[in-house]
């Protein structure tokens, strides 16, 4: 309920579409090796337009597998999965993906890395260059337009990757531990920026992490997953108002929610 009202507050422009379910999974499962290894048991979930959903759990809980099935990069073994009402059959242009590693092309400037998604789908126009520069400014890299990835810090590389993700124009963003390889301070800072940016563009976001605090802090809804076999154990609503500040993490309500999620994970 709270999650919905938060989503409403953030993308008021699309009020008539509010409450639309953009990702719907019914019994989505994945097995490897002729069904002998269960990576994910049938999971049921619904994600609404503009929602920020975290997937949290330890290694081997199937959270990255689930994300990749939504991205259309791996096939599911069972169940139904639909994005914008269409059954997922492969990668699609309205779904963008970001990884733990920035995966930038080191022979391209920051600007040209941001332009890559567009370049792969059509011929570039000068408006694309303007748009890419705006996105670089949005992630705070306006002074590094013509810098190469190896000259950027890890955090800055992920910023470029985020700008590239936004350049795809996708309205569903899938983030697989995007800041997991960065130090605590940089990660916290980038998380705050990420919240601001996805709220700005009104995207639906699926965020994979193994950090419970981070999962709750960012999300409207936390999908808690447990390992062996990978299972979606519970979906927890996060009731906190937006915009959120880092201080939220110091409140008793926040910590109570952390404890609740930890309890779910602790059973396993």
């Amino acid at each position, binding site marked *: 309920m709270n999650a919905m009202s938060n989503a409403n507050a953030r993308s008021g422009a699309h009020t008539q579409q509010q409450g639309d379910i953009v990702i719907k999974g019914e019994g989505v499962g994945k097995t490897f090796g002729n069904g002998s290894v269960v990576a994910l048991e049938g999971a049921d979930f619904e994600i609404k337009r503009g929602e920020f959903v975290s997937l949290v759990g330890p290694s081997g809980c199937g959270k990255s597998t689930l994300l990749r099935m939504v*991205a*259309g*990069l791996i096939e599911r073994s069972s169940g139904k999965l639909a994005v914008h009402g269409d059954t997922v059959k492969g*990668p*699609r*242009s309205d*779904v*963008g*993906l970001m*990884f733990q*590693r920035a*995966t930038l*092309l*080191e*022979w391209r*400037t920051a*600007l*040209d890395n941001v332009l*890559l*998604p567009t*370049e*792969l*789908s059509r011929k570039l*126009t*000068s408006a694309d*260059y*303007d748009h890419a520069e705006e996105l670089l400014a949005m992630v705070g890299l306006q002074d590094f*337009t*013509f*810098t*190469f990835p*190896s*000259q950027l810090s890890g955090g800055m590389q992920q910023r470029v990757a985020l700008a590239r993700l936004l350049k*795809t124009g996708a309205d569903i963003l899938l983030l697989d531990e995007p800041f997991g390889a960065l130090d605590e301070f940089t990660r916290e800072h980038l998380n705050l920026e990420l919240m601001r940016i996805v709220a700005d563009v009104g995207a639906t976001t699926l965020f994979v992490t193994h950090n419970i605090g981070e999962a709750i802090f960012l999300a409207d809804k936390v999908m808690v997953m447990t390992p062996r076999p990978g299972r979606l154990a519970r979906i927890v609503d996060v009731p906190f108002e937006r915009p959120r500040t880092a201080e939220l993490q110091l409140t008793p309500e926040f910590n109570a929610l952390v404890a609740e999620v930890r309890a779910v994970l602790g059973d396993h």
Partner: protein
Amino acid sequence: MKYPVIYRLGRFIPHMVLLALVLVFWEVAVARSWVNAFMVPRPTAVFDSFIRLYVTEQTIYRHFAITMTEAVFGFAIGASVGISLAVASAVNETFRRYVSPYAIVLNVTPGLALTPIIIAWFGFGIGSKIALAAVISFFPIFVNTLSGLTNSDPDRNELFRSLGANASQRFWKLQVPSALPITFAGLKIGMTTALIGAVVAEFAQATEGVGVLMQRFSFQLNMASSVAVLLTMSIMGVTLYYAMELLDDRLIFWRKDSGMARVGRRRSARVRALKAGSVVKA
């Protein structure tokens, strides 16, 4: 980043001193007859031969040019064939299955053992030298290019897949640039092996080239001139290697700050021009 000239010279000096010491010791050792002067020529005698070959008689240049031509043409053929087969193998799984066994057999066969056969096929002239140079420079180029093209980073492959890239976009925008560094490592090896091929083929059967010259001098037991020719081969090797290195540095600019600065500036100018142009048109 650039060091002052004096400083760079300073780092160079110890090397020169060491080399000078070795040469002096060598000279003294021969002068004092610690070693046989007939078999081991004195550095000054080698220097005299060098001067004779390069300045007074100037006999070396023709041979130098011939061998360089053989090595460069052989390399060009070996590289073209190696890169083409590697690209075909990288693009087509079936092709790779049928071609790679032969490539491997060719590799484990000592390439230089082909010399007599190649001379029988291509004759005593420059053709057989080029052919041997091509054959033995082919393999390192083929192997490196193929592994560069096929071992692109899995995360990047996934990125391209998620962005809906087609095979040709993936090839040109991901595989080729990823493969460049290792391809160039192969080209550098191939360049030097091509020179070996040319010289060995000259040893076997030829009328001109540095290999012939060297053989002639050593048959005459003119060791000083033989060593001078050997040094000439070193000069050729270094020249060819650095030509590749230069191209390498130019093309794979993203390994050095200076290269990235250069290309970044150029890119910035182009983007500005592109935007200015579109504004004028609009």
